[in-house]
């Protein structure tokens, strides 16, 4: 297996399942991805960044297929919008895979430094994008608290709708009219992020809600429809390059598919503002966790010299600890509310049946 695939013992297997479970709960709860936790989590376990992304995007492909079918049954998928975005999203993925694999190849051969350039690049994109996502999410949830409004802000959508850049495309399911150019730009960005860090949904869902102005349920359903094709395309590309660890994919499924159902149940019993607040805090902790790991990659690339080499494992442990802290505390809050809701529900049913 060489340097590409890690050896899996029982503890590591359990940790990957746990990562999948936490990612799944968060994904079901937040409605977009879960890769923001699983990708860095696997990197912390020693998985190469490019393999972590490749395995995660492959895992996402199957999961999105199941999810999109369910959303489709409920009429929450705007296939027309999904297909329009898909065209450029596939280009974005191809671009991302090309950059990642090129950087992996330029990582300095085998050994410790192998893949460090790709790891650094993936981490930096991760930090920059998710920092802005989390900050806007936190600001939104805190600001709405003051205004007593629980709906997402529509300022960007309203501002953009004023431009009416020709040609405007009508999407009847989502009930919006959006400029083709805006769709293509968002599609390209979504594809690029999905291909780079496996978290296209984190841009796709907010973009559809805030930029296109479509309802949250349709945004989540359409994103899953898009994710299904993007995931398939990403999986094909990464598999073609030999960067998919099928064992990790299966272990992730063991945890995530159970977690998704539990997280989705959580959305029924937890207030929407709390959902956004919890999500924002979890993502910002994930960003900090990745930022802590950056000096390691810089040092591996000889761009930074650490005085004490024993700092490497320490930084890695801190990064891992913060990541697990964010995931576990988020999951604890969700599970606590899910449990409470479940008990309430069972009580209601038993009172009906007696």
């Amino acid at each position, binding site marked *: *297996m060489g340097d*590409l*695939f890690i050896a*899996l013992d029982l503890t590591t297997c359990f940790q990957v399942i746990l990562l999948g479970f936490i990612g799944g709960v968060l994904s079901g709860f937040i409605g977009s991805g879960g890769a923001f936790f699983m990708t860095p989590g696997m990197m912390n376990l020693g998985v190469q960044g490019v393999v972590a992304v490749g395995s995660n995007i*492959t*895992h996402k*492909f*199957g*999961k999105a*297929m*199941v999810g999109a079918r369910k959303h489709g049954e409920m*009429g929450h998928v705007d296939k027309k919008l999904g297909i329009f975005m898909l065209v450029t999203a596939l280009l974005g993925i191809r671009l991302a895979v090309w950059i990642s694999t090129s950087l992996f190849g330029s990582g300095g051969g085998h050994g410790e430094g192998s893949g460090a350039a790709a790891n650094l690049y993936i981490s930096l994109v991760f930090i920059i994008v998710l920092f802005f996502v989390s900050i806007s999410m936190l600001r939104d949830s805190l600001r709405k608290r003051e205004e*007593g*409004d*629980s*709906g*997402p802000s*529509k300022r960007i*959508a*309203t501002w953009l*709708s004023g431009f009416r850049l020709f040609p405007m495309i009508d999407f009847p399911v989502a*009930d*919006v*009219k959006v400029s083709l150019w805006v769709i293509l730009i968002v599609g390209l960005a979504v594809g690029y992020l999905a291909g780079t860090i496996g978290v296209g949904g984190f841009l796709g869902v907010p973009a559809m809600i805030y930029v296109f*102005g479509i*309802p949250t349920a349709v945004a989540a359903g359409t994103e899953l429809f898009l994710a299904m094709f993007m995931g*398939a395309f990403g*999986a*094909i590309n990464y*598999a*073609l*390059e*030999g960067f*998919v*660890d*099928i*064992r990790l*994919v*299966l272990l992730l*499924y*063991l945890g995530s*598919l*159970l977690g998704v*159902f*539990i997280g989705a*149940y959580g959305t*029924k019993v937890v*207030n929407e503002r709390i959902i956004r607040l919890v999500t924002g805090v979890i993502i910002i902790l994930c960003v900090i966790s990745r930022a802590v790991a950056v000096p390691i990659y810089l040092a591996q690339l000889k761009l930074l010299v650490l005085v004490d080499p024993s700092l490497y494992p320490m930084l890695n442990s801190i990064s891992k600890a913060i990541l697990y802290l964010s995931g576990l505390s988020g999951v604890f809050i969700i599970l606590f509310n899910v449990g409470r809701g*479940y008990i309430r*529900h*069972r009580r*209601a*049913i038993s*009172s*009906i*049946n007696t």
Partner: protein
Amino acid sequence: MRIICVSRGSKTHGKDFAEALAAKLGYHCLSREELFEEAVKRRIPIGKLETAIVMRRDTSEALSIELEHYKALATSLLCERALENNIVYHGRDGHLLLPGVGHILKIRVVLDLESRINLVSQSLNLTRNKAKQYIENVEDDRRSWVRKFYNVDWDVFTLYDMVLNLSQMSVQNAALAVCSMAQLPEFQPTPSATAALRDLLLASRCRLRLSEDEKARRLNVKVRASEGIVHVTYPHGAVKGLENITTLIGGVEGVREVVCTAAETNILWIQEAFEPEGPSYGSVMEIAASWGAAVELVKFTPGDSEEVASPVPAEAESEEPSGWRETGIIDDEDRTYQDETSDIARLYARLISDGKAGRKRTLQGSQKTLLNSIDRATSYRLIILDGIFLTKGTSTRKRLVTEWSNALSDSLKVPVLTIDQIVSKYHFGPKQTVQMIACAALAGLSLYTVFHFDDQILAFLSRPELKWRLVSMVAITAFVPFFAQVYGTVTSSVLKLFKFD
């Protein structure tokens, strides 16, 4: 009591036509603009609402509540006027404010684009292109409004009894032609239509009564009425302001009883005969509890209503109709309050004690009657259609239930299931057990294979030759969704087994 609703686009002569028609028939004319003026008097921010809807913004909860206030106001004004006089209303699909009132003559007025462009160019002093753009924008806004307000598509012409193209016809002649149509028996009031109007009026007055109270004004509640019983549904989390609901609504004239239910959505349960003590109740209630839904009951007796009434001569305008056809609720005897020992009354009492009561109604008629009686603005998550056509044989009954289910589902875009289908879809039975075991075995086998032969598999997947990479790519893209599907079935089955859905 006769109602004609004219739906008009921008610059289609719709207003002129409605006024000419009202004058010829001697009906009272009511316009959407009058409703707006009344809304402004009552502090409903109608301009803000319209802007939010046409800009296709997600309306905030506060604005959604104001939208409900406006809906209640418009309904109450229409019902009041219709109960006092014969009316012609012109606006945007006003007939959809009156679900269950089957005798409304619904007319859509259209005009060719070129004439409309000329009218806009002249009245607003615009160039041809700008006038065309103006019309398209206004039409777009109307489409958004109708979709948001009534949850229907403005361009579906089957919403109307008649589409009048005024491109070749003068307004006066069109009005003259419609006068005779208005005399047809299908558009004459029936006792059931009057009762439906009274129910709508009572519900809208109760909703407006809540909007007048400072605390209750902010409540996101749905109010409906049936035979003097007022049903209020409110979200589970709502607490503030609820305490006064019964007192406020109880003070409205005509209210016999107030039933409050915490519900996020609704389940519509249609049967010809209910079994209040039967097992179906438990199955439906499990879903209602899981979804936080109120259960609305409709005791429906299918009847043959395809008879065609003979036309009524024009001179008989003031006479009562000689017949009816597809006129909505058809149990036309003077409606008396239902016997409290009837199946629907006992089931309803059970629903009230379980806190899941929606409203209850008894209807008789055709498929169209049933469709017309369902309020499209109400959020239904599921329709249960079971135990109807009881006089037919088993095969015929099954076929008819399937046909009606498909028609309801297509028209309302809501899943329509029988009780048996609910049990198999939402409950865990032997079929699900077999499926779960089979999928668990397949998932286990897949895991064993991958982890037992992991070295060989990974070596194969990372072979450098292009042809082997292509093979591994195909293998991964075929195997991964298969495993996701199989293992997903196992997890969802386990959660369903523990009623965790």
